């Protein structure tokens, strides 16, 4: 796995940057909900997509972009500005870890929220 294929994303810049992608992948959508910011400091696009794919494999009921967006967006799927989304997601990831709401996906111990972000990232590549 190559580290830092991703540009470094901060919570506040994530919303306006598009994730780099490996050859063969379509460009990622810029939506904050599909960008696991902290994880992207450690893992490249391919790893994130593979993690998302593995998550979907064990959570087939979430194999749907709209459904994932609805889960990830702050208020019942209602679109919000990207900063709001980013802050909400960061808070939910912190809360997930604090509450033990984690998912071990392809070995990665992730917050459930960031595992879903990986899944959404993967689905948006298809």
């Amino acid at each position, binding site marked *: 796995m190559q580290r830092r294929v991703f540009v470094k994303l901060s919570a506040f810049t994530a919303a306006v940057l598009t994730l780099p992608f490996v050859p063969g992948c379509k460009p990622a959508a810029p939506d904050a909900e599909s960008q696991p910011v902290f994880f992207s400091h450690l893992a490249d696009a391919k790893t994130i997509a593979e993690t998302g794919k593995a998550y979907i494999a064990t959570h087939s009921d979430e194999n749907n972009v709209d459904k994932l967006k609805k889960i990830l967006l702050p208020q019942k799927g209602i679109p919000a500005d990207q900063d709001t989304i980013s802050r909400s997601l960061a808070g939910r*990831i912190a809360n997930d870890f604090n509450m033990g709401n984690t998912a071990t996906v392809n*070995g990665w111990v992730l917050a459930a929220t960031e595992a879903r972000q990986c899944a959404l990232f993967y689905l948006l590549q298809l």
Partner: protein
Amino acid sequence: MHIDARNIENHTLIEGDICIIGAGAAGISIALEWIGTPYRVILLEGGGFEYEAKMQELYRGKTTGQRYYPLESARLHYFGGTTGHWAGFCAPLDEIDFKKRDWVPYSGWPIQRSELDPFYARAQKNLDLGSYEYSFPYYHDKDKSLVPLPFDEDTVFNKMWQFSPPSRFGAKYRDTIVNASNIHLYTYANVCNIIANEHTSEIKEVTVKNFAGKEHTVRAKYFISACCAIQNARLLLASNQQAPKGLGNDNDLVGRFFMEHLEIKSAEIWFPEPDPLKLYALDFGKTKYRAELGITAKKQEEYKILNGTASFTPLEIARTQPAFIDIWTKDQKQREKNMSNYSKKENDFKSTKGFSNFQLFTRIEQAPNPNSRVTLDTENDELGMPRAMLHWELTPLEKRSIRTIYEIIGQQAGISEKGRVRLLEYLWDENDHSWPEFTGGGWHHMGTTRMGTDPKQSVVNPDCKVHGIDNLYMAGSSCYVTAGAPNPTLTLVALSLRLSDHLKKRVNG
């Protein structure tokens, strides 16, 4: 005083007050305690003062079950025993290791950690360690640059280790033992049989043999078997003249509950920025103390897992290091070469900026398991003693515990925003109870004459005396009920000192 048992008249009768069988860390530690007393101590060592392939061959034995090291290479058969090649890792068992844990079958010692503390403090000196201090704040006060990972202390704690130089008992204590007028060290005196009285209530004598074809008899008031966990069990089982199932084995427990520490790469931790992790770094031969991550007793109970620790090696180094089980060969020279290369790579852990990713390596107890056991083979060694056979068997609890430990550490890495943890692939499927090829142990043999108050569930009593035999004691890690996470040497020396004190009280009436 030193006597080479090859050079004395055949069928010599040797007599003393105390007979210690085996001159390794346990046997020598006990012998040292008796120097200058009015008692005549016979210390029997099967080998000489140097490594000899022919002596090692006596330890050869078949292994089944979980892949294991060649038995003849896992222990050293000469004066000083396996301290001749140990790495010096020392830490006491935790309080929880002595407790009965309802999620760990057959757990619970008949003594508590507090009863061993005074002996741990004494054992530190035998092993050239610092003060008996293993709390992280103590070391942090000494060196504020030892920065701990920002994890919840009620969940993950910094388990401190001290490192012996490492003390080689053979070189360190040879002159002291040989010059002691009341310690009679016999080398090339392999005990092949322990002979009890008719009712097996007392040991009368032991028979020693060597490659010179000599056979001698040793008589004493008290006998202590300090031959390591596999050989202690082998000796009791093979001493079946008066007790057909072997001495102390009325309840078929001798040799059962063989335990090892699982030592296995398990996960990776990734940080966004490099970190030297100075508190957790190891520079072999120089580091005097360091920490590994442990899971608190409260969390062990909550998750119902075994006690284990995680150590850190930079990933770029760890990925070049083969598994111990693959490089620990029968051939001594090749083995030393392989291990030397391994240590050189480990010493590269010196980046000032640090590293962004580390391999997490587990040391963990195995659950006591009666099916994991030492038995006798039908084949005899060159001195006519049945060879030991080892069946090493693990349970699903070990694997679940390792997986859980890294999920807990992964959660802490997430809470603290320090990084993310990735489990190695063999841990991904929680329904897969198999082990990968690189699974190995720490060359730590324990549990084959376990301690307890009930003869139906243990071999020795809390004083390490074999149940039902008035003057036969077991010394060393064979008496362990559970293994804890730490390497066994410090605890086995502490237990030996405790046994020695007990025996002094008894001898003095």
